[in-house]
């Protein structure tokens, strides 16, 4: 296996060919990164690998269940006088491609519906008085534009999509794979006959394990990709090259930054025997990922010390694998935001509580079944005079009524610096957990920002998951300087994002307000406190409920000033324990 894996610049093209061949058994592709010519060119390239006749269905961000799954077709129902079902986007995509736009912002319900169809190959519809099971075997292209703090693509859906392409790494030239639509068609027919050796399963699983990818789906997708590559090459069985390339495509590219790294560091020539200690240094990498990697070195080392050495992995240079594993470990530490927390609710959504008589204007949505049902019993009467198969009068029209429950997001902004005593942190953790236990009963959410030394950190993005919260809280460190302005600035951003999603933010600031780091990160900067006050005033203009808890040993003037700037309720709690804080927040929320 001298030409080991394929060179990095070929990978995007091969990904398109593999997807065209093995589509439904790989699930699809996540195109992560901002929109741009590179992404468009890749999608165009994919199109050229597919049969031109295949459907290409785009799912917009605000898609309703009715459009997605299907439902009663009003026009046809009215003209034929019997219920007519109209297929949704999922069924229309059968045999083709389903493009999910702004995939990271799609609602969990939409993502779960797509995931269910990927599993079953059909759409099950129980809507508007109709029951249907329609075939839907398609390939998903999820356009994931999430940046830094955004909630990432729904994890359940992510797990089902085998390929990943980082669009920032794509050029806008034509996509080259060396195969065309005809090659792909032939390979598709041949793919089922491609044999996979028993040992290959072991190798794929070992590699997956070494990279810290535990879902068995990823291994299955790798096998499918290897079959597709072998079929494209006209081979009857999966060989080392096919397996290595499939591993790169499915497993390695899943690690953010991997494509760039592979491009920078072409795989070594005589890879398999390369001793471990000759491994290339982990790349200096992108500026953001470097500190992460550093910070988590110990974790990465401690977690899986020997796996990379021992595993008979899928034909990848072991040195390359080791550095990738390190990169993967550093990425894993970035706790993704909870999808439950990102449940966006537009105004016309929420809990449907029925329908009422009314005209479908001003954004009211016509409730078709209800309208027809209202009209139905009167048909016999009306038929005598009317000529239309179904006579619907304005009186019959029904519109949907939704109850929009504004959920509250309690945002803790916690001073984790040395001046706030370490024991405060323990109390704060306790308070957050107590509140969370309550919030979860009320289906509200909790988020946590901690600030210390030079920056603030969103330790817990808005969530109602106890599992996630516990994980975040256990990693809350203390000590160092007090960058109050950073903490408040982040609180402003997070609460703005909450408002945008239609949630009601409740901000709880816990600090002694002894700011000593300014926005430039200079310790002892003279403007540190003034800057904090300026941001506090800015937050006050939003009109959110804010609770400012003075955690100093004695109630201090600065904390009082901060509370005034925030127009917050001020609470000096020198001896606060978890239960007192919890009770105070409960009072503020009421």
């Amino acid at each position, binding site marked *: 296996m001298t030409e080991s894996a394929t060179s990095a610049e070929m990978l995007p093209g091969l990904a398109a060919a593999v997807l065209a061949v093995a589509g439904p058994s790989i699930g699809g592709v996540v195109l992560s990164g901002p929109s741009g010519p590179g992404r468009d060119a890749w999608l165009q390239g994919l199109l050229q690998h597919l049969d031109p006749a295949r459907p290409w269905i785009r799912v917009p961000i605000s898609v309703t269940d009715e459009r997605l799954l299907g439902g009663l077709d009003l026009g046809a129902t009215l003209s034929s006088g019997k219920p007519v079902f109209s297929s949704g986007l999922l069924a229309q995509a059968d045999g083709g491609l389903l493009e999910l736009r702004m995939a990271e912002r799609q609602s969990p319900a939409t993502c779960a519906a797509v995931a269910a169809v990927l599993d079953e190959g*059909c759409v099950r519809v129980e809507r508007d008085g109709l029951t249907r099971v329609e075939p839907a075997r398609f390939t998903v292209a999820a356009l994931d534009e999430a940046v830094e703090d955004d909630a990432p693509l729904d994890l359940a859906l992510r797990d089902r999509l085998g390929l990943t392409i980082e669009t920032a790494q794509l050029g806008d030239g034509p996509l080259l794979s060396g195969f065309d639509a005809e090659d792909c068609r032939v390979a598709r027919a041949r793919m089922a006959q491609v044999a996979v050796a028993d040992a290959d399963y072991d190798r794929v699983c070992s590699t997956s394990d070494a990279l810290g990818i535990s879902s068995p789906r990823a291994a299955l997708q790798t096998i499918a990709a290897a079959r597709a590559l072998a079929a494209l090459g006209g081979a009857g069985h999966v060989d080392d090259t096919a397996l290595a390339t499939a591993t790169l495509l499915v497993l390695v590219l899943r690690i953010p930054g991997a494509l760039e790294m592979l491009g920078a560091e072409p795989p070594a020539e005589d890879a398999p025997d390369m001793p471990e200690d000759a491994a290339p240094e982990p790349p200096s990498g992108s500026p953001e990922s470097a500190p992460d990697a550093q910070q988590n070195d110990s974790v990465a080392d401690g977690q899986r010390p020997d796996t990379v050495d021992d595993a008979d992995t899928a034909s990848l240079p072991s040195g390359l694998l080791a550095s990738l594993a390190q990169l993967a470990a550093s990425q894993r530490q970035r706790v993704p935001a909870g999808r439950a927390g990102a449940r966006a609710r537009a105004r016309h959504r929420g809990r449907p509580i029925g329908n009422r008589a009314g005209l479908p204007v001003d954004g009211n949505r016509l409730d078709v079944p209800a309208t027809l049902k209202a009209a139905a019993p009167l048909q016999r009467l009306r038929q005598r005079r009317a000529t239309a198969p179904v006579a619907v009068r304005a009186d019959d029209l029904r519109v949907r009524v939704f109850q929009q429950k504004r959920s509250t997001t309690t945002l803790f902004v916690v001073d984790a610096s040395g001046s706030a005593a370490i024991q405060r942190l323990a109390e704060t953790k306790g308070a957050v957990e107590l509140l969370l*236990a309550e919030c979860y009963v009320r289906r509200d959410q909790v988020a946590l920002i901690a600030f210390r030394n030079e920056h603030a950190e969103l330790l817990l993005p808005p969530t109602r998951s106890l599992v996630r919260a516990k994980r975040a809280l256990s990693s809350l460190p203390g000590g160092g300087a007090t960058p109050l302005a950073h903490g408040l600035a982040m609180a402003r951003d997070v609460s703005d994002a909450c408002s945008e999603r239609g949630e009601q933010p409740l901000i709880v600031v816990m600090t002694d307000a002894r700011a000593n780091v300014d926005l430039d990160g200079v310790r002892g900067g003279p403007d540190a406190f003034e800057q904090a006050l300026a941001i506090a005033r800015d937050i006050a203009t939003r009109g959110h409920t804010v609770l400012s808890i003075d955690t100093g040993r004695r109630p201090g003037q600065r904390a009082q000033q901060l509370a005034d700037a925030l127009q917050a309720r001020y609470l000096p709690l020198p001896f606060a324990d978890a239960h007192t804080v919890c009770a105070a927040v409960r009072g503020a929320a009421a």
Partner: protein
Amino acid sequence: MAARKPFPFTAIVGQDDMKRAILIAAVDLSVGGVLVFGDRGTGKSTAVRALASLLPKMAVVEDCPYNGSPDDTRCQCAVCRSHRRKPRTVRQVPVPVIDLPLGATEDRVVGALDLERALGHGEKAFEPGLLARANRGFLYIDEVNLLEDHLVDLLLDVAASGENLVEREGLSVRHPARFVLVGSGNPEEGELRPQLLDRFGLSVDVRTPTELSMRVEVVKRRDAYEQDAVAFNRRWSRKDGAVRRQIAKAREQLGDVSVPDDVLEAAARLCMHLGTDGLRGELTLVRAARAHAALQGRDVVSMSHLADIAPICLRHRLRRNPLDDTDAGVRVQRAVTEVLEA
């Protein structure tokens, strides 16, 4: 579209707790449902879908829309009523395992006015929904934590009363709706409401197998199934058949399995020790232990039967302590050791 044959139950690698819980629910429907929560790709929905083929057939009155039993005189549907005094046609049918798909509307869940008859003939007639179809069988909800609140309320109400009461569009219908609720989901998507959690008799936490060899086996079997589902099912049909007979036999014997007093007492002590609310925990423990013993062909429930099933019966009934990170299953296990070995 004819759905592909589901993945065989016995071909699922490991996940013993999950398999045990599903078997127990299949033997004694009164245990009250199974909740399967856990990692992605662990075969949660695979196991549930495999359940249908393991269940022995049941007798229903032909044409009864609610799967009415010939021995049940309470069914109020037109068919059962008119046949009450006459001999009825009885058919053996598979036990229903009904999917409640995401995005289902309320009218399809509870049943509503029959659109076709209303539109075509101007008649008011009731079209039964998913709850009617699930009567005497299983109702499966994948991604149960994404279920809309109003549907959750509705299910809770029906599950508690065993009866579906429809009052809408001028229809007034009441029909039996006794079903075993089976839910699956991922805890990262959010937690379940405590009221719904409480409706599940058994709760299982599934994890990705940590052993590489097991993971390899998972991947191999799944790949073989994807390549040729029919051949794969044929290969496992003998083992699946054995489980089917095991369930049928256990169901027959269930009534003869006795629960000694010391086991009953231990179950009560266990619940007290863990501070579970209400009697439901104890009741579930005893019923599940009995079904577990029946599955093993025993006619007396032993302490080890109780210990085997305690975690899946009680783990979701513990009072939540947000400051205690210990996995609930571990806490139950600890209590089992302390109580049963004391």
